[in-house]
C-alpha cells in the first residue's frame, strides 16, 4: 500500500505515495479511515510530498477525510502539495477549511 500512517505527537500523519486517481483512491480512503477511527487523533495530516499524480479524485479523498475527521471533532492539515496539486485542490476551496502547511508560496502562487 502506497501509504504510511504514523502518529507524530498528537497528530496522525498519513503520507501518500504515487498516483492518486479513482483507481487508487479507494484503497487509500479505506486505510486512512481505518487509521482515523483507530487512533482518534484530533489532527489528521495528509502529506502529499511523494504524490506523483493527482486528479480530482485526490480532492474527493481530502474532502471525504475532512468530513470524517470533523465527525470526531478534529481538524485537517495538508502538507507537501506541489504547485500543480495545489491548483487542483484550490478549485474546491479546501484551503478555507484545512490548514495548509509547508507550501505557503504554493498557496499564493496557485491564485
Amino acid at each position, binding site marked *: 500500500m502506497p501509504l504510511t500512517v504514523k502518529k507524530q*505527537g498528537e497528530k496522525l500523519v498519513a503520507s501518500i505515495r504515487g498516483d492518486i486517481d479513482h483507481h487508487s483512491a479507494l484503497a487509500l480512503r479505506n486505510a486512512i479511515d481505518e487509521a482515523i477511527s483507530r487512533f482518534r487523533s484530533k489532527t489528521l495530516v495528509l502529506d502529499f510530498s511523494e504524490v506523483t499524480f493527482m486528479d480530482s479524485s485526490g480532492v474527493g479523498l481530502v474532502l471525504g477525510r475532512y468530513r470524517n475527521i470533523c465527525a470526531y471533532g478534529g481538524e485537517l492539515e495538508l502538507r507537501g502539495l506541489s504547485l500543480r496539486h495545489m491548483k487542483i485542490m484550490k478549485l474546491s476551496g479546501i484551503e478555507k477549511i484545512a490548514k495548509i502547511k509547508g507550501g505557503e508560496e504554493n498557496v499564493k502562487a496557485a491564485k
Partner: protein
Amino acid sequence: MLTKLNSERDALIENNLGLVHACAKRFKGKGIEYDDLFQAGCVGLVKASDSYDKSRGFAFSTYAVPAILGEIKRMFRDGGSIKIGRTQKEKAISLVRLRDELTKTKGEEPTVYELADYAGLSTFETAQLLNAVIPPMSLTVFDSAENERQMDLIGYDSRADMTDKLSLHTSIESLPEEEAKIIKLRYFSGMTQAQVAEILSLSQVQVSRKEKTILKKLRGII
C-alpha cells in the same frame, strides 16, 4: 575422421560469422557492448555447428540463428532479474534530476525532447518514464534546492553504499541525543526535514541548519 570433422566444423564457424554479426547488430545500443554481444553470439554459433546434421536437409542458418539469438538473449538475462518498478523509478528520478539541472543551467525548463536527447532515450520512452514517477520533491518549492541534493546523496544514490551507511551508524552513537535523532530520522527513516521538525518541535529552518552542522561534524569523525 575426427580431424576431418573438426575442420568441417571450423569451416562452418568461419563461414558463418556473418550470422553472428547480423544478430548482434540487432541488439546494439541496448546496454550491452557490441563485442560482448558478438562473443555470446559466437558461443551460440559454436554450439550450433557442433550439433548440426547436414543430412537432415536444413540450411545451417535455420539451425544457427535461433542458437545465436538464444545466447544473446541470455546475456540480457544474466544481468539478474530486476523488477520493473524499481529500475523505472530510478531512471525516472534521474530524468527529473536532469530536468532540474538543465533548468538551472539554462534558466528555463527543458522540453521533453531536450530531456530525451540528453538522456539518450526516445521521446516515447521518456514520456513513459516520467509517467512512472515525477518525484514532487523537485516540484515543491518549500524544500530548498540544497537539501534536496543532500537527500539524493544518501537517499537515492546507489553509490552511497552500505559501508558508508554503516560507518555513519557507528559515528552517530557518539553524537548528542537530539543530533543523533535528526540524522536517524532523516537518513535512516527517510523523512523530510519538515517531518523531522514536526517530531522534534523545531522549525524546518532549524532542522536544516542543525543537519548541516551535524553532517560537517560527522564527516570529521568518519
